[in-house]
């Protein structure tokens, strides 16, 4: 755990307490059972916004707290531990895009609403099932955007889309010219193919050529925070289970074959945490963000992948049941691994940006 200041410790403790009490995995089970395609609880998101979480990276002049990315990451990690379904990450990333690329007018219009939780935002970037921001065909003519975006996170609840066209990022409000086709994935959260057919679009003019890349780096790092919370939770619940389950008249935790596997996972988890926190610290310092984001998401992918598989295996048959939570983490894990860069994509990017 990074060394935190008092403000950050309070924020983390508050998020941990809220997630544990108000948003355990049971809350997600309820949402899933409701069949609501939005797949989150509006009251719960309202409470999160009340606590200021949707404005952590938004400047104070626009209604946020400007606590920084490490603070945002702490909250997201805690919510990841209990698989809290919410548009917090999506909205934070939409806000980040406007902070980086918006005009004064766009900032004044959207940031206070996003920070207050009144407006839900999301990124609409990729056009296929594999992350590939170099291949974009969405285009804009006369202020109207057309194109189809695949697997948009939190699309059903979104009021505002940050859409990548071939020549830059645009803000598109839901409504005329925007239609959704639900794509129900294994994690049973909100995903949709979003078609823009001559939808009114406003360009984010600032932020330069690197705007899309900068926004994606933030997406990688914040997503890695959710994954870190998930990996920590799977590790903790698996360790608990091994300490309780008795076979051959012995608790499983006393078997060396299992002890060493947990020691391996513990080491991996330490590396994942360092990489993810390194990403957040890079964002706050503004130094080495691209490299840090690649390392953060690549480590998050590698470790959560292993953790979610071992979590099932070490639970045994009971881990395969819907009644146990561990399987929920496995399904969400793969969705997040594939989002904003698979492991193969990130290795290629690391080599490319390192000059080899």
């Amino acid at each position, binding site marked *: 755990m990074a060394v935190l200041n008092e403000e950050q410790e309070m924020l983390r403790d508050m998020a941990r307490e809220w997630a544990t009490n108000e948003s355990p995995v049971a809350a997600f089970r309820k949402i899933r059972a409701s069949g609501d395609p939005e797949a989150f609880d509006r009251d719960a998101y309202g409470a999160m916004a009340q606590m200021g979480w949707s404005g952590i990276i938004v400047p104070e002049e626009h209604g946020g707290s400007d606590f920084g990315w490490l603070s945002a990451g702490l909250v997201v990690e805690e919510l990841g531990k209990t698989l809290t379904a919410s548009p917090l990450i999506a909205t934070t990333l939409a806000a980040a895009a406007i902070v980086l690329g918006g005009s004064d007018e766009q900032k004044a219009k959207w940031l206070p609403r996003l920070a207050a939780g009144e407006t839900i935002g999301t990124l609409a970037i990729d056009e296929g099932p594999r992350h590939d921001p170099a291949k974009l065909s969405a285009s804009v003519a006369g202020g109207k955007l057309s194109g189809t975006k695949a697997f948009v996170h939190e699309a059903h609840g979104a009021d505002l889309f940050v859409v990548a066209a071939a020549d830059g990022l645009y803000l598109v409000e839901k409504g005329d010219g925007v239609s959704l086709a639900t794509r129900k994935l294994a994690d049973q959260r909100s995903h949709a193919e979003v078609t823009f057919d001559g939808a009114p679009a406003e360009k984010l003019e600032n932020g330069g050529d690197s705007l899309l890349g900068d926004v994606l780096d933030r997406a990688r790092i914040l997503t890695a925070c959710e994954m870190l919370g998930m990996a920590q939770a799977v590790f903790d619940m698996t360790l608990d289970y091994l300490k309780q389950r008795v076979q051959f008249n012995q608790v499983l935790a006393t078997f060396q074959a299992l*002890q*060493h596997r947990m020691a391996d996972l513990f080491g991996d988890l*330490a590396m994942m945490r360092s990489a993810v926190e390194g990403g957040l610290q890079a964002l706050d310092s503004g130094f080495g963000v691209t490299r840090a984001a690649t*390392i953060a998401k690549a480590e998050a992918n590698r470790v959560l992948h292993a953790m979610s598989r071992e979590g099932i295996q070490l639970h045994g048959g009971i881990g395969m049941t819907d009644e146990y939570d561990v399987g929920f983490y496995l399904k969400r894990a793969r969705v997040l691994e594939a989002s904003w860069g698979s492991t193969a994509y990130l290795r290629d990017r690391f080599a490319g940006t390192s000059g080899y």
Partner: protein
Amino acid sequence: MATQPDVTAPGADDAFREEVRQFLAENFPPELKGKGNALASVEGPTQESDAQRKWREAMGERGWGTPTWPREYGGGGLTRRQARILDEEMARAGAYNPIGGMGVMMFGPTLLEYGSEAQKKEHIPPICRGEIRWCQGYSEPNAGSDLANLQTTAEDKGDHYLVNGQKTWTSGGQWADKCFCLVRTDKSDKHRGISFLLIDMDAPGVEVRPIQMISGMSPFCETFFTDVKVPKENLVGEEGQGWTIGKRLLQHERTNLSGGGSLARMMGASLSDLAKKYVETDADGAIADKVLRDRIADFEIRWNAFLLTARRAAEESKAAGGVSEISSVLKKLGTKLGQERAELTIEIMGLQGLGWEGEGFSEAELAGVRAWLFGKATTIYGGSTEIQNNIIAKRVLGMLDHQ
């Protein structure tokens, strides 16, 4: 270990930085620029050039080779902040720390914690000046991973102990002046029968035989003790406290063996630079072998995550005040990655990377082969990876044998 409080008056950093620069300009021999500290490593050699001696003495005089150790025992008495400035300025000047070895890495910090006042006064200053080489008398033929099974005995003879037995894997034993040693003072209790004793390597009855390893080098020795008389004042702590003190020393050892920053500097050329030199590149300057390129990226991402972990552990232990059980995690991770890197290195070079000696190979290529082989020791010594896994599972994760 006591460290000066990290409080600095405004402008004091700049003044200290200026002092360091002046010291380096006056004392660091330019011909040593960019050279490593081979003399302080456990693998020897012992021959020192005039320039090397002059540099060691200058640093030793100031205590700056052991910058945060207390001034009263010959350390630098610097704050961590000042030590960092010293580090930065030395790196800038291409200077190395000439004070090192097991005395600095392991024995000194342990003695500062457990030694008597007289022992600290006697043994710490020569370590700070780089005058005395220490070696470690821990492992025995039948006490490897099961270290507490050690059988070398120290019999109480009134005014001295009489030591008999055999130690093995004594790193640098052939060059060492003194040995910190775990000995058995009580056969009835496996752990509480162990004591921590300091033995002169030139005392009558001490015999050292180097062991030739698969690397062709002999960094380790067998050490035999036959009726060796050791003065009573060379006992550290109390009789029976050796296991506690000895384990503490291992935590220092693990923190150092895990590598981290110093290892990164030691490793020299990056794998990708190496690959560009030995493997074809495409028109964009990328490594043409895409599979190899992917594996190098995979390794370097994990290596970076490890370096971040080492840094995080240092920051966290600063708050907690000393080394901790996280040292087991670092040792396990760092040594595994170090071996992976060595395997990748020789693979990239092909057969050119497996030269044993003679014509047709560069010095770096030959050194790489020996380093690859020597590196196999890193997951075995200092508590094998399997032992680290036991420590992590039992002490950190609470997965006990009996519940």
